[in-house]
C-alpha cells in the first residue's frame, strides 16, 4: 500500500481530532514495520486495516463509512497535489473511465511494485457510467468515496448505485447516473 494513503489518513485524523487520537490509534494498532509512515514509502495493506479498525472503535464509526469518507477526502488531495497531471477539459465520466487504462499504467511506471485494483467499464454514455471494481483488498467503500470526491472535483452531480457482486465484496459494481 502506497505510503501516501497512510500519511494522508493520519494527517486527516490529526487535523480533525488532534494528534492524541493519531497517537492512540497507532499505539493500539501496533504496526509491524514501523509507525512512522512517509508518503514515498510502501507499506503492508494489513497495517492500514489495523489502523482503520482502531480508528473505527475510537470514533465509533463503521469501517465502511470511514473508508468512504477518507476516499472522498483523498481525491481532493490528489486534485490539489497532482492537478498538473489532469487533462484539461475532460469530465468526471471520462476521468473515471480512463483510470484503468491511463492512470494506473502511469502509477506503475513510477512505482513498479504498486498493487492496484482493477476497473472494468461495462458501459459508458453521457448520462450513465457502469464500472466494476475488482480487488482482493475489498475496498469498495474507499472506491465509492474516491468516485464521490471525483464528482465533487469536476463539480458534477450524479447518483451512485453500489452493488456487491459477491459475498466477500471483492467485486463491486458502480452505476453512476448523471442527474438531469
Amino acid at each position: 500500500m502506497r505510503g501516501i494513503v497512510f500519511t494522508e489518513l493520519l494527517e486527516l485524523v490529526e487535523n480533525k481530532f488532534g494528534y492524541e487520537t493519531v497517537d492512540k490509534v497507532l499505539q493500539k494498532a501496533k504496526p509491524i514495520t514501523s509507525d512512522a509512515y512517509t508518503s514515498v514509502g510502501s507499506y503492508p495493506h494489513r497495517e492500514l486495516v489495523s489502523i482503520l479498525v482502531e480508528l473505527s472503535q475510537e470514533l465509533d464509526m463503521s469501517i465502511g463509512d470511514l473508508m468512504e469518507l477518507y476516499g472522498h477526502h483523498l481525491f481532493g488531495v490528489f486534485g490539489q497535489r497532482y492537478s498538473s497531471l489532469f487533462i484539461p477539459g475532460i469530465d468526471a465520466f471520462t476521468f473515471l473511465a480512463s483510470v484503468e487504462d491511463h492512470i494506473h499504467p502511469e502509477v506503475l511506471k513510477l512505482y513498479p511494485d504498486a498493487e492496484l485494483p482493477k476497473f472494468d467499464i461495462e458501459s459508458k454514455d453521457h448520462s450513465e457510467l457502469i464500472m466494476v471494481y475488482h480487488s482482493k483488498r475489498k475496498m469498495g467503500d474507499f472506491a465509492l468515496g474516491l468516485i464521490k470526491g471525483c464528482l465533487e472535483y469536476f463539480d458534477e452531480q450524479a447518483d451512485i448505485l453500489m452493488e456487491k457482486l459477491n459475498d466477500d465484496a471483492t467485486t463491486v459494481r458502480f452505476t453512476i447516473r448523471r442527474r438531469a
Partner: protein
Amino acid sequence: MMMQPQLDSPSVEELNLQIEILKRRVARERAARSSAELLLEQKSLELYKSNRDLMRLNETLEWRVSERTNTLSSLIQSFHAGILLEDEHRNIILTNELFLTQFNIDEDPANLVGMNCSSFLTDVASLFEDSESFKVRVDELQRNQEKVVNEIVKMKNGRVFSRDYVPTFVDDKYVGHLWKYRDITENYTTEQRIKYSEEKYRGIIENMELGLLEVDTDHRIIRAYDRFCEMTGYSSEELKGQNALELLLPEEYQGAMTEQDKKRASGKQGIYEIELKRKSGERMWVLISGAPFYNSEGNIDGSIGIHYDITDRKRLEAELRQAREIAEKARMAEKEFLANMSHEIRNPINAIAGLTNLFYDTNLKPDQLELLDNIKYSADILLGLLSDILDISKIESGKMELNEKQLPLAASVKALVQTYKFRNNNQVKFNVTIDPKIDFDVVADQTILNQILLNLIGNAAKFTEAGEICTTLELIEEIGNHVNIRFSVRDTGIGIDEDQLQTIFESFKQGSKQTKLRYGGTGLGLSIVKRLVNMYKGDIHVTSEVGKGSEFSFNMIFVKRTEQQKITDQRIYSEMLPDSINHVLIVEDNKINQQYLIGLLNKWEITYDLANHGGEAVELIKSNTYDLILMDIRMPVMDGYETTIRIRSMEHNTNQNIPIIALTASALVDEKEKAISAGMNHHLSKPFSPEQLLNIFEQLTESDANSSLGGHSTFQFSNELDIQYLDSFYMGDFERAHLMFQIFLDNINSELDKLKQHFDSENWSELVTLAHRIKPNFVMVGLGKLTDQMLEIEQAGKRSDINSIRQLVPAFIKEFEATHQLVANERARLSEWLSN
C-alpha cells in the same frame, strides 16, 4: 467532537502525557524523515543510473544513425539517378552530385542540407521544356502525396528524364518525399524510333485497307486500329478491353478459333478465312493473318491479327459457284438433249436408210431408181451431219470408243481414195503415193482412220475446182513394233487466209461466212479430225496459200502387225450368211424399226417372232427356242436391260444363254457397258447397215464354231471352274468374260462383308434378300456350287428355317474362301490372253 487541550489548568499527569505524546511524535517524525531520505537517496541513485544508461544508449544510437546516414549518403551519391530527399516543409535532407549536375546547381551536396527547395524552383523550372507544367505537376504531386513513378519529362537541352516521386510516411504521418530523376534519353529515343517505325508500318498496313487488331493471350483487345474499327463498325474505345472472340466471332467459328489458338501458342503464324459479326449485326468475311508477339522475356504477350475484308470476293465466289452450277446443269441438259436427239432423229433416219436399202431389191424403173438414189444420198448426208455432231459430243465427253482391228494400211487408204474417183468430176485427179516401206498391217480403228481421211479429202474436193488432190503416206519412224506414219492431203484449191489458219481446227469455225454460205457443212469436220488424230497421239498441221492450195498433214502412231490374217470386212454378205441362225426373236417397239429388221430377216430367209416390248418377249421365250435375240433398249412395259436379266435368270429354259444383241439408239459407251453387264452379248448402235448386223451374226457363229472346235486361238477356261457353263455362257466372247470376271472381283468383297454383317446381327430378311441378289454372280465366274449354296440359303429363308441358315452361311463362306482366288487367277489369264 474535537478535543481541545485545556490550556488553563493542565495537570502534571496531563502534561507528562502531552510530553510523552510529543516525544513519540518527534520520534515518529524523525524515523519517517530518515526513512524518506533513505528512500529518496535510493530513488535518486536509481534515476542517476537510468540517466547514465540512457545517455550511453543515445550515444550508440546517434553513432548508428550517423553511420547509416553516411552509408545512405554515399549510396545516394553513387546512384545513377539524381536524388533529392525533402522533409515535409521542402527542406533538403539529402541530395546527390548527379541531381545537382542534372539541374545545373553549382554546390556541394553537403552544403545544401537544410536549405529550402522553393528557392531553387524557378531556376530549375526554367530548364524544363515546359516550365509551367513542371511547376504545376510538382505542386500537384506534393498535394496528392501518392507515389508516381516513370513519369517522362523533357528538358530544354533535349535530355529526357524518367521521374519518380515517392512520399515518405512515419506512422501514417507524411514526413517528406523523395525525387528521383533518371536520364533515359538514349533508351527513349531508341524506343521512340522503334515506335515510330512500328507506327509507320502499321500506317502502311492500315492504308492498304488491312485492319489491325492486337489482343492479349485471353483475347482481350489491347488495341484496335482505325481501319479495323471502320470494318467492324465499332469505335476503338468500344473495342478496347472487350473479349474479341465473344464480341466479334459467330458461334460456329469458335471451334476453328480454338485450333488457331493452339497454333499461335506454339508460335506459328496462321492464315484463315472466317466471318465476323459487325456492330450492326451483319456478317462480313475476312482473311486473317495472325501472329503472336513477344515481350522482352520472350514469352507470348498476345497476338496481332491482320484482317482483310474479303466479303466481296466471297460473294463473287458464291456467284461464280452458282454460275458454274447453272452451266453444269446446262451441260447436262445438252448431253441429255444429244442422247435424246440420237434416239429421236436416228430412228427415222435409220428407217429411211434401211427401207431405201430394201427398196433397191424391188423391181424399179430407171426414173424410180434415180429418185431412190437421191433419197439415199440425202439420207446419207443427214446421217453424216448427225454423226459429226454425235462424234464431237462423244469425243468431248471422252467416250469415243476405239474399235481396233488389224488392217492393211496401204490397201485401205488406196481403196478409200478410189471411192472418191467415182464421186467427182474429171477435172480433179485423186492421186495416192504410199511409201513402199509401208507393207505391213497395223492395228487401228478403220472407222476413225477413214473418217479422218474422208474429211480431209472431202474438204479438199469441196474447195478444189480443178487440178489434183494428192494423198501421201510416209513412214517416219519405226521403233520396235510401233510405227509413226505421216499422212498428208494436198490440194490445188482456193486456199485459206492466213488469219483463218489459226482457228480452222476449232469447232464451228469455217474459213469465213462466205465459205459457209457457198460450201455448206457444219464446220465440225476439221475439229473432229484434230481430235481423232489426237486420239492416236498425233498432231495435225496446215499450210496454205490463197489461190494456190492447201496441205493438211498429220502423223499417227500405230502398232504394227506383220502376221497374215484373214480379212473379213471385204466379204460380200450373201456369201457369209450364217446357217446356224435360223430363228430370231425381235424385241422392238418402234414400228419402222420393226419393219426394217423384218425386211432384212426376210431377205436372209431367217424366221422370226416379234415382241413389242420386254413383257411379250419373256412370254415368248417360255414356249419357244431361238438362236438369237435382237433387243431394243428403250421400250414400254419392260426395257431391254430388265428383259435380259429376266431371260438370264430363267433356269431350265433353253433360251437362258441365248446370244442377245442390244440395239441402242444412243452411241454412248456407257450404254454399251450397261448392256453387257446386264448380260447382253453384243451391241449395235442405230442406225446400222445390213453389213454391220451380218458382221455380228458372223462373229457369233465364228466364236460358236471356235469353241466347239477348241482351236488354239480360243481361250481355255481352267478346269477347276465350271467349264461347261462358262463356255456356253460366254460362247467365245472372252472380252465379255474378262469384263464379267473383273466386275465380280470389284464387287464381291463388299457384298460378302454385307452378308457377314447381316449374319452377325441376325438380320435374316436382309441376308436372304442379299443372297437372292448375288446368287447369279457366282455361276457366271464358274463357281456354280456357290450359286447353288446361295439358292439353298434363299430357300431356307423362304421357309423361315433359321437353323439351316445358321449352318449354310458359314459353309458358304468357307467354300467361297477356298475358291474365290480361282476367279482372280482366271481373270489374270483372260487378261493375258486378250492382250496377245
